[in-house]
């Protein structure tokens, strides 16, 4: 399977176009089938993936505009592999759990197109192709929020689109400038990221490019103070939109840092650890507080996402294999856990048509299965050991501790503040007597919801106890990344900060 990546990218596109021909009543089955095949394909990719090879695999390169060095250039390594699998998984789960009747055909086709864009972003190694997929991912999401959203859906959708679009334009300027510099150094045009890696830039240039890329990624993550589109988008989006937004789309930002900023600008990345870390700290602490003040369950989880993304940023900028591996693992775990939490909020919203915590109370006695799964996801979200949430959070923090113990202690307050808002949410919703009559006859989770949620619970526990099959490939690629960065860095500070690890491991 030489071109499994192209199949992975374009299968949902073809299937989505064919979907227009499918009858409205069977579109749900069709969507589940397509998403399952895509998920199985991604698992197959994992099977074929050589876990001991830290470099790029399944490389495909077709020149598109040879004069400007633009080509269709895709490949995966340990860093992107699992994010792709998570994207296909969450799309599948999102479609299974879909509970919308209005225009369902359009919705499912849109989701398939969104899947194309998401996978495209994570496999692209050509900046132009990457940028195309990156921007293309906005359109389906704009449509999903704008067409199936809540009351203020238009405002939320437009804000989401314009905000992230403005950021990515700045990133585009950065990309064009890198290509220009590459041209003036080597005399040839190239937009291949691997070519750009080899480009050693003076610090003065790196500095500006770092911030140009930073703005594009930071808005996507979203980092404080660029985060305000997120609560609106989540608040208004339908459940499936929130699931995919939180699970996959936000990861594009943090993935961008690992794929572009770190290897291309190692010196600037090291030089600006402090400002970035301080923004991340504000994200962690401040949004945890904001989450605590929320009255709407979904907003709590939306703000908690921002808070957790802060820990991911901290891990990414740890500049050692422990932290970066941890941050990538945390991207996966946050995707699974926040996706599941949004699904859970969606379930209760379908029943009561409200997400206000004050409307609930005592749900644990009415809906025990729901309370159990919610409880497991809550514990994973606060980073309990032996759940998926702990591994990434612990590694991210341990990595950044090498850089700055003080800031790590502050970032570590996320384990306290996270417990505060999550447990408060759980207490207000699930504990106490059932006071509201409307809650007395609520149905517990049905078969469809359980089908969507139980696999996620299984993953949460499996990867919490035995993360090795996922951690080792990530770690191998990350070690290659850190040693490359160490080689490339030319300022003494960066040389000293970027750690190279000596250990190598294999998955047995």
């Amino acid at each position, binding site marked *: 399977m030489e071109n499994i990546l192209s199949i992975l990218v374009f299968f949902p596109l073809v299937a989505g176009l064919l979907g227009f021909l499918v009858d409205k009543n069977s579109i749900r089955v069709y969507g589940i089938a397509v998403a399952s095949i895509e998920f199985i394909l991604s698992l197959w990719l994992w099977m074929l993936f050589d876990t001991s090879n830290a470099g790029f695999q399944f490389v495909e390169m077709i020149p598109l505009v040879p004069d400007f060095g633009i080509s269709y250039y895709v490949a995966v390594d340990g860093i992107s592999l699992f994010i792709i699998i998570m994207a296909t998984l969450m799309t599948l789960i999102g479609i299974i759990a879909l509970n919308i009747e209005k225009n369902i055909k359009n919705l499912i086709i849109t989701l398939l197109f969104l899947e194309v864009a998401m996978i495209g972003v994570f496999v692209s190694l050509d900046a132009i192709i990457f940028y195309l997929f990156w921007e293309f991912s906005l359109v389906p999401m704009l449509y999903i929020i704008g067409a199936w959203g809540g009351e203020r859906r238009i405002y939320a959708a437009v*804000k989401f689109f314009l*905000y992230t679009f403005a950021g990515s334009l700045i990133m585009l300027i950065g990309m064009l400038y890198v290509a220009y510099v590459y041209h003036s150094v080597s005399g040839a045009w190239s937009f291949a990221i691997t070519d750009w890696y080899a480009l050693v830039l003076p610090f003065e240039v790196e500095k500006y490019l770092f911030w140009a890329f930073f703005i594009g990624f930071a808005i996507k993550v979203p980092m*404080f*103070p660029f*985060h*305000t*589109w997120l609560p609106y988008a989540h608040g208004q989006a339908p459940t499936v939109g929130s699931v995919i937004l939180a699970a996959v789309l936000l990861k594009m930002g943090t993935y961008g840092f690992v794929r572009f900023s770190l290897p291309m600008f190692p010196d600037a990345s090291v030089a600006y650890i402090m400002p970035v870390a301080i923004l991340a700290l504000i994200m962690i602490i*401040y949004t945890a*507080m*904001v989450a*605590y*003040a*929320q009255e709407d369950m979904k907003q709590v989880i939306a703000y908690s996402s921002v808070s957790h993304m802060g820990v991911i940023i901290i891990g990414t900028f740890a500049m050692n*294999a*422990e932290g970066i*591996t*941890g941050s990538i*693992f945390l991207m996966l775990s946050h995707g699974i856990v926040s996706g599941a939490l949004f699904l859970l909020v969606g379930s209760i919203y379908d029943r009561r048509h409200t997400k206000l915590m004050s409307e609930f109370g005592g749900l*644990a*006695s009415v809906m*025990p*299965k729901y309370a*159990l799964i919610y409880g497991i996801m809550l*514990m994973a979200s606060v980073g309990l*050991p*032996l759940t998926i949430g*702990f*591994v990434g959070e*612990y*590694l991210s*923090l*341990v*990595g950044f*501790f*090498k850089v700055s*113990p003080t800031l*790590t202690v502050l970032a*570590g*307050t996320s*384990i*306290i503040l996270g*417990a*505060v808002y999550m*447990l408060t949410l759980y*207490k207000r919703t*699930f*504990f*106490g*007597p059932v006071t509201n009559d409307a809650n007395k006859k609520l149905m517990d989770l049905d078969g469809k919801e359980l089908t969507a949620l139980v696999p996620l619970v299984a993953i949460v526990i499996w990867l919490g106890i*035995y*993360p*090795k099959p996922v*951690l*080792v490939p990530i*770690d191998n690629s*990350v070690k290659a990344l850190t040693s490359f960065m160490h080689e490339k860095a030319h300022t003494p500070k960066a040389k000293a900060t970027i*750690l190279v*690890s000596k*250990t190598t*491991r294999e998955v047995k």
Partner: protein
Amino acid sequence: MENLVYIALFAPLVGSIFAAFYGMSPKNIITGIVTSALLFVSFVASAILLNHVMTVGPIHVRMMDWIMAGDMLIPFGFIVDQVSVTMMTMVTLISTIIHIYSNGYMEHDKGFNRFFSYLSLFVFSMLILVMSDNFLGLFIGWEGVGVCSWLLIGFWYHKPDVTRDINPSISPSWAANEAFIMNRIADLGMLVGIFLIYWNLGTLQYDEVFASVGPLENDLVFWIGITLFIGAMGKSAQFPLHTWLADAMEGPTPVSALIHAATMVTAGVYLVIRANPIYDLIPDVGYLIAVVGTFVAIFAASMALVNRDLKRIIAYSTLSQLGYMFAAAGLGAYWVALFHLVAHAFFKSLLFLGAGNVMHAMNDQLDIFKMGGLKKVMRWTYLYMGVASLTLAGIWPLAGFFSKDTILEVAFNEHTYGIWFILWITAGLTAFYSFRQVFLTFHGTQRYDDADAHPHEVQKYVLIALIPLATLAVIFGGFMDTFKTFTTTLLPAYEMSEHTHHIAWMLIAVTSAIAISGIIFAYLRYGKGLKRNEKLENSLPYRVLSNQYYIPILYDKVFSKPYASLSKFSWQVVDQRIVDATVDGIGGIIKSTGDNTRRMQTGNLSDYLKWMAAGALLLVAIAFLAFKLTQGAN
């Protein structure tokens, strides 16, 4: 032998999962029987391991890899050595008895199956904690017991929040959250300790850490010691993180027994004992630990003096005894701390389970002012609680006498006379409050309404199950020398100086004297029944003590409320009015620019032509200026 390690560790987990399958169905006695039986299996395995460690030596097994990244590799590894096997045997023994007891206690509860699932999971977490061979494995258990305590304290989650004079509002779920969050605060400290160890020693395995910690800079060891102790403070409820322990009394009584005797609060002491090679390098931190412990000992005892809640009195006594353990460990007498830990576990679980019997008999009434005269109807429970209280008071020849007295001797031997004096006073207070509680509950006249309760003794098998605890509480002191030789093969042997040996009998006499006078004073005051003294109860010191030094209210006013309002401020003002308003403001500026310039678009051609002419003129002017300026430059 390896298999035995796994059996001892995983039997409770199997029981827990088994019971979990029945979690949502109505009561099924099989869950209680299976979990108790599996716990017993675990106990037998631990006992065999104890024998093995005694005769052969420690066992170290490595199950599988857990986390690996960079140069870090953390396995699931388990060590069964003198310290952990002692803990394992104690934990499984007490837990088995508590499981059996719970079969009777939870008989009519509709969450019966769920309860046993949680209970066994709790034991499993504690076993992970004590058996792990590295710090992160310990942390799994550390957080695991935190979650299980959350589940169990909040077991009766359906109860509403009740406003009380001493607390802002309290309910099982509130207390559960408080316990979890307080523990998390301390866990952060512990995590920082783990980070420090990793980045300075490159490993988290106990043996490697302890072997290489010596040459480390003293400052670093100091911080490692402090941060690990912060972790221990949360789990062992040391001041200022102590409030959760008394509030945890909202949970079912067997849970309180488990938390206090076996599975949770002792974890902090265990950590300090386990990390003794680190603390030996930093005597200053050890001294600090001893001071904190001593303070907590008297602080908690003073609150127990006036409390009217049967379970809270026992909870404060635990706090106080934990203070003793920390004092011993801090002064370097690790085996003494461990000995007191084990002895305390026996009599404290007995005390709690006895209190559970009383509570059951009294229809969940906990106010000892509303009891009295129960010894007629509950002879066995009276006997158990009497024995346990005598042990707690430290009367010869019961277990508590030996352990507590040795701690006092250690304090004397170290020439820390202040610590000795305070612990000595506390011994008197302990005797007084435990017998105040016994006399008020069992002696005197009946002070409850017959309509409220019909006290009766509990089931036979429950009473029989308590016999091992009572026996051990009585005779365990006799094993002190064996215990010492056994544990000091791993722990530093602490020897008293000649001088202390010389005057040991005097110390014993003084300590016994104050304990006995405490009991006598309690008898004079309460032996014949309750004589309330309004003036005393309204006096300031009494009110301060019965309000727990106003600390819960203080925490509410200083931390909870301001945090809530700061959060609200962050959301409504900072996030919405500043950050988001800025974004919307930028959007607004662009929009209004468009709105204003739209007027140019009149639709009238001649207006357009005017704009065009003006624009052309402007361009000419700019070109002219640019020309002039470049000319000037040249």
